[in-house]
């Protein structure tokens, strides 16, 4: 009995003399960063920036590293700083637009294959210099990174139509899905501001364009959230609130025309025009104006996706049915590109009341 046990022990000793568990997660000795900001560096390198959160009573520190490989950043960081970097709390990946144009999928793959990183990591594109923003803002706002994360989380949770918020899994699922293309939120950053710019569009995994703030509203209504807390239409001097949409997309059998019927329900939040909207016929005319405005805008949005030959609106998904074998992505996009688009809005507005 004893001999057998000792044989076992000897075996184990031979199988490895080092400590079996080399991870060390003592809080005072680690730096659990919450975001990586990636930018183009000099000579084909990456520039990685992050804020080190304070564990004890100390100041946050900004680190910028020039590396060839993403994960090299972790190593360089450890060699430079007295705490070990850990990715377990990574919540945001902020990628510069210029870098995204060159490559995005290899970056995301690297992050995806790390078991420490949650697939709920938020992906964000940035136009301008996020580094400058960090540099300035962290003097004013102590918990900057945390509040940024809370902002994304806030808009993600209820899908209230303010922003397109996309996480790692959603992005990858759409990259592989033949009938939909991924989108990412894009922000503009400079020394003083970090502002939502709209939705960045991808063709499978290539960054190809964006919807600006105005187009983005239509995008939220017909594809992303189907809800807008606030829809200002300056052109008609009106602002709608709590807008909920119901979208019916129908493609005919020959794939020649696409009918989009959007049922919209909302209320007037604000009106600064000259119509007396308390009057019913005036109100009807007003509704009609809103309808034709939205139709124009939406048709423009769909045309833009046709021009770029991409599918952020997931029109193709509406052609799928349980019993028909689907066509390939390329075939579908060839049809989609040439499709005639009819957009119809039925707007129902609760009258302004006190």
């Amino acid at each position, binding site marked *: 009995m004893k001999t057998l046990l000792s044989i076992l022990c000897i*075996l184990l000793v031979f199988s490895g003399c080092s400590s079996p568990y080399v991870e060390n997660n003592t809080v005072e000795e680690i730096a659990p960063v919450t975001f990586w900001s990636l930018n183009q560096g000099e000579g084909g390198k990456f520039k990685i920036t992050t804020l080190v959160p304070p564990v004890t009573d100390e100041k946050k520190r900004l680190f910028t590293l020039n590396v060839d490989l993403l994960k090299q950043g972790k190593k360089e960081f450890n060699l430079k700083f007295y705490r070990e970097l850990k990715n377990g709390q990574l919540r945001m990946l902020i990628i510069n637009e210029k870098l995204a144009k060159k490559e995005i999928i290899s970056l995301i793959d690297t992050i995806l294959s790390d078991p420490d990183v949650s697939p709920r990591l938020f992906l964000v594109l940035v136009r301008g210099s996020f580094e400058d923003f960090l540099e300035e803002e962290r003097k004013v706002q102590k918990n900057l990174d945390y509040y940024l994360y809370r902002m994304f989380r806030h808009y993600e949770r209820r899908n209230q139509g303010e922003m397109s918020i996309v996480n790692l899994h959603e992005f990858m699922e759409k990259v592989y899905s033949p009938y939909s293309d991924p989108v990412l939120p894009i922000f503009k950053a400079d020394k003083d501001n970090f502002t939502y710019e709209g939705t960045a569009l991808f063709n499978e995994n290539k960054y190809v364009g964006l919807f600006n703030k105005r187009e983005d509203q239509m995008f939220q209504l017909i594809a992303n959230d189907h809800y807008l807390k606030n829809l200002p239409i300056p052109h008609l001097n009106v602002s709608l609130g709590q807008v909920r949409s119901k979208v019916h997309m129908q493609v005919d059998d020959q794939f020649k025309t696409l009918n989009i019927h959007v049922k919209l329900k909302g209320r007037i939040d604000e009106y600064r025009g000259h119509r007396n909207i308390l009057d019913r016929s005036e109100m009807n005319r007003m509704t009609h104006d809103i309808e034709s405005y939205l139709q124009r805008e939406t048709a423009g949005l769909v045309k833009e996706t046709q021009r770029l030959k991409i599918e952020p609106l997931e029109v193709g998904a509406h052609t799928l049915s349980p*019993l028909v074998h689907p066509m390939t992505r390329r075939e579908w996009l060839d049809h989609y590109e040439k499709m005639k688009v009819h957009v119809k809005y039925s707007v129902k507005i609760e009258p302004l009341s006190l």
Partner: protein
Amino acid sequence: MSSRFRLFDRTAVMGSGYIFAMVNRMQMLYYVLILPKHLVHPYMMAGILGVGVLSQINLLILGKYLTSNYFVLGYRGFVQLFSEKMVRFFAFLGIFFILIKVIVTTLGYVEIVHQFMFPSMKTSWLIFVLMASGFYIASQGMEKTIRLSIISFLATIWVILVYIPYFLPPISQTHHLYPLVPGEVSLHSWYGLLMVWSALSGPEYIVCLGPWIGPKEKILRGMSIGNALSVFEYLVLFVACLLYYGSPYLQKISFPVVNMIRYLQSPVFERVDLILISLNMIYFLYLIALFLLCLYGAIRIVAGRINIKTNRKGFLGSVAAVFICMLIINGWYWREGEELNLWVTLQLWLGAITYLLVPSVLAVAIKWKRGQS
């Protein structure tokens, strides 16, 4: 000391509840975790159902033996049915089947733990911990080990509720379930079906547990419910994976089920996957212990020591041998990251073959014996 070490004593007979739990957990072992990746297409839902029905028919055939008098007698029943020489030959084969099954299950589980929980840990330590706990459970004796089935079932069955969010809108995408009809049936699809069949294998090992379970009228009912529940769980897992990934993406993921759970977040504990992986250990350990006991029994039969009392030395020796085999395979032949490596493929075929042959061979033998007498 060794006189009190009795592994194969019998003081009570375990009813259909234990059989149900045992069959169900046996069928949820390891393969189900990698299965969705190989089924891929939505129409394989029908495949799972179809193979589930076949498995039920197979259990009916197995029931022929389980309701006969030979079964209750255990080893002596086998000897009556076949000759002693044949039984020794079968036991000899069985050693290899069980050995491969234990090895693949343990190493597969260790690989998952290594990849998701302790990437920096040496795998031999993980194997050691698993084998040591398996040995401890098994050394409590066959009866107590079988009793553990209900506990391991109750401790892990609720995990199925965790998959509910994957069926609800923000995560699920309904169009991933289309089309439901196959376009062309490729070799890959047939391989997927084989995999389902092999994943459902395991209940054939109940033939080794004759003296401990009964009454014989209730065995088949327990097995059938267990099988039905497994098929249901397979479906839930597969559909959840489809809704979450969609077919094209699903193909690229090595451990779809575990990766899928990583998406969940609880406000209390963020990495839900770690809890669930650890929970799986309960029934993995239980089954490893059960198979170690079967293995030891088979070794005793082959060595012709069936009538000699069990002793701790012999059992520890055979467990240590299994452990060493595992270390060798893990060190030299197990290619991590490639989830269908040589050994997993081997077990895939062996499991399918034993599940297909054991019930029918026994049924034929009984018929033949009856014709003789």
